[in-house]
């Protein structure tokens, strides 16, 4: 499906980005919007250089980025360590699913901010509550993908493995788990997006670091240029993280999307 037949498509992508940048530049040159509503690319660039050199509010840009990515990474690790085993277990065992499914279905549509205050009260105002918030947001997509993955495993593949001498325990490790890997990666990529978009919410309360916090803090002072820098950085690191996941996926699931 996604064969690297990229030549033309890459050019189209690059052209799209270029057109957007030019349009941005044109709108500001023609003074169709004030600097507060839409800072010019040059202003944003200068602001970026400034933040990069001097930091923002006592912390360097790398510290802000590092704080955000650290929280994200910890939450993501938590999701991998809990949602994958619980999801696979739930997919294999309908009684376990009866316990976990409704809970996940309940948490999944909740807006994270609704329960964030509770988490702060329970877990304190430090990183614990922030990481838990992100992990709670990332858990459902991975869990649901794992359950769906197990249910999609072809029955004949399991029978086949049995006739080849695999025990019931080996069926899980050597057939069910690898068969679910493509679904697990789909879930992980969705989860990455969800946790990332929860990041700003997580850094709203009592943070003094983080890209999300930087954007929120700048909002209070209507520093549009800083908001733009923050948003662009979040978007670009988001793409970068997704790329890393995709490379990992290509390494671990080279057969993905290819039938037989």
């Amino acid at each position, binding site marked *: 499906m996604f064969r690297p037949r990229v030549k033309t498509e890459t050019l189209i992508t690059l052209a799209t980005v270029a057109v957007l940048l030019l349009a941005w530049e044109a709108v500001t040159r023609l003074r169709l919007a004030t600097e507060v509503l839409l800072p010019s690319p040059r202003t944003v660039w200068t602001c970026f250089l400034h933040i990069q050199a001097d930091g923002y509010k006592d912390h360097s840009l790398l510290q802000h980025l590092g704080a955000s990515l650290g929280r994200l990474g910890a939450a993501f690790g938590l999701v991998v360590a809990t949602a994958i085993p619980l999801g696979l277990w739930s997919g294999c065992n309908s009684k376990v699913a009866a316990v976990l499914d409704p809970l996940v279905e309940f948490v999944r549509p909740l807006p994270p901010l609704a329960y964030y205050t509770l988490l702060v009260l329970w877990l304190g105002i430090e990183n614990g509550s922030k990481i838990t918030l992100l992990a709670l947001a990332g858990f459902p997509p991975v869990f649901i993908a794992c359950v769906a993955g197990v249910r999609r495993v072809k029955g*004949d593949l399991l029978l086949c*493995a049995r*006739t080849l*001498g695999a025990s019931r325990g*080996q069926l899980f490790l050597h057939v069910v788990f690898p068969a679910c890997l493509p679904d697990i990666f789909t879930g992980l990529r969705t989860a990455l997006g969800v946790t990332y978009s929860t990041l700003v919410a997580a850094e709203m309360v009592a943070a003094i670091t983080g890209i999300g916090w930087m954007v929120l803090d700048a909002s209070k002072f209507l520093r549009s240029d800083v908001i733009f820098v923050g948003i662009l950085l979040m978007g670009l690191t988001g793409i970068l993280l997704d790329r890393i996941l995709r490379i990992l996926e290509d390494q671990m699931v080279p057969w993905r999307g290819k039938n037989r």
Partner: protein
Amino acid sequence: MSAAGSIQIESLHKHFAGPDGRIVQALDDIHLDIGRGEFVAIVGSSGCGKSTLLRMIAGLDLPSSGRILFDGEPVQGPDRLRGMVFQDPNLFPWLTVRQNIAFGPRMRGRARDTAAAVDALAALVGLGEFVDCWPYQLSGGMAQRTALARTLVNEPEVLLLDEPLGALDSFTRMAMQDEILRLWTELRPTAVMVTHDIDEAIHMSDRVVIMTPRPGRISQIIRVDLPRPRDRGSDAFLRLRARLLEVFHLAHRAQATPEYSL
């Protein structure tokens, strides 16, 4: 391969609940003795229970009553000594051809000392150059050869074939028939093959078991006394084919008009 591998099927019945909740009699009073090293083909139209019978010999399904003995012991579950090849090759897409073939030994913790056997078997089925390919890179015939090798590496005493060539084009199909016969002659497992192709049954087997549906019964067993290797165009072959077709049609007419049923 081993000298053992006999199968006795005694008063076998199998019924299960159909989609509408009614009891479906899938197999009714099946008796069949299969000697070690014999090649038996089971033919019949769809719904006659031939695949159910094969799955029960494999141990993937248990009898409602009666029993299946494998070397004198009742079959109670799947066993690598009764290997099965399905119509769909069912290769593991996350394993290469070599890893697929090595699956059985790996499950027994014997991956290391069977590595040479795996490569030898891959070469034997003509996949020597393709051992590092992924299943999605294989043609239908190659995928089925891999499935065959994956089963044979377990040194099964009984080789169960569930329409293994049903999805192949007729040219590949005939080549694979001879391929399976060559392997069978060399390794001498007991072979039981389900097929809906009468030519295939005559070409390959020592005996052809004809089954009729609703309920699944054995209507007749015909011995194929043609010398091997067999010539698909010989007079003897064609005579036997005509006779089998006649039996087949009779059996089905009997089944289609209940007032004349057996």
